[in-house]
């Protein structure tokens, strides 16, 4: 994957303070970051822009408690090579299996310190 695309990051989370913290943190480390707080906003971004990396919370403030999986699925349709990280506070073996089937590279338990998250992500993209 070309470098510019591999640093192109979409972060989806409905917790605005956490989202802003992640945006600032990854921007500082030279990622080109877009943010979304809703399923539909994330889908619109994925339709019109290219990303090399997605960090997405499983549960957003919508009608489903699995909107993150919809976004993952959309990202996978849009890009076969994008690296995908799913954040959740509700991990389970079933979820891990389903996420893996959809092409999630990492299923990460929340909360996670941002430096640790970055290490995990960079191990994926190296």
């Amino acid at each position: 994957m070309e470098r510019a695309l591999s640093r192109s990051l979409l972060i989806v989370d409905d917790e605005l303070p956490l989202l802003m913290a992640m945006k600032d943190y990854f921007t500082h480390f030279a990622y080109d970051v877009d943010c979304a707080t809703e399923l539909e906003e994330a889908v619109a971004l994925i339709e019109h822009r290219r990303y090399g990396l997605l960090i997405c919370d499983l549960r957003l403030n919508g009608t489903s408690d699995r909107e993150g999986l919809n976004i993952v699925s959309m990202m996978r349709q849009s890009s076969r090579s994008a690296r995908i990280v799913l954040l959740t506070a509700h991990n389970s073996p079933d979820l891990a299996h389903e996420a893996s089937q959809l092409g999630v590279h990492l299923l990460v338990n929340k909360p996670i310190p941002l430096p640790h998250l970055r290490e995990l992500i960079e191990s994926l993209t190296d």
Partner: protein
Amino acid sequence: MVPPTHLDTLLRPESIRTLFQPIYDIAGDPSVFAFEGLSRGPAGSNFESPDIFFSYARHKRAEHLLDRICIGLVLERSRDLPREARISVNVHASTLTAGGGTFAPFLAAELHRAGVEPSRLIVEVVEHALAWNPHDYAASVDELRAIGVDVALDDIGVGLSNYRMMIDTRPSYLKIDRYLVAGCAFDSRRSVILESIYELAEKLAATVIAEGIETEADLARLRTIGIRFVQGFLFSPPQPAAAFTRHELESLRATS
């Protein structure tokens, strides 16, 4: 990005910016033929991009509502533009049919409210999704013509602006997408397709408008083909109506 509950926020008039980009008649000295009204979400947000703005609304099942709000704002905010120039607005094909025959009356009411003569208006129809009712579509377009506005088919050459849409829309204007225009001076394939569309338009009694002109070379090629109406950054970027001062407008007419 803007805070959560985007949709309610985004549909407020104060959230929607209206810009106008002139369309020029280059038959003689270039002069402004029309101003296309373009809608954008809040600056600095994801919705500043119209693609993302309207795609988001579509996924929220609010695209038709957004279309109507944006058209109302374009008409209202076009008041300071010279009345000799025409105004064009964009609408999705699905919006024309979604309201069960209510779009044309809505548009007539908005024109009246804004004090814009129907004969000044060009409605540019576009569609990005296969989600409208083709049976009602042609009737909806006829209803638009019945209130006295002209109809254009936008994005010719890309997406769903295809031959079927030309037949069903019977447009007065074919607006060629920038993808075919940008670089046409040095790309024989683009040039050949532009010539072909121009000839097709002549046979359909439609007028071609080319958008996305950014270089003198492309402009010269379009002139050679015979295309009379053009739009693009070479002439003017989209900007708020207030940014076009009277002095600038007069000079735009005289020179450009």
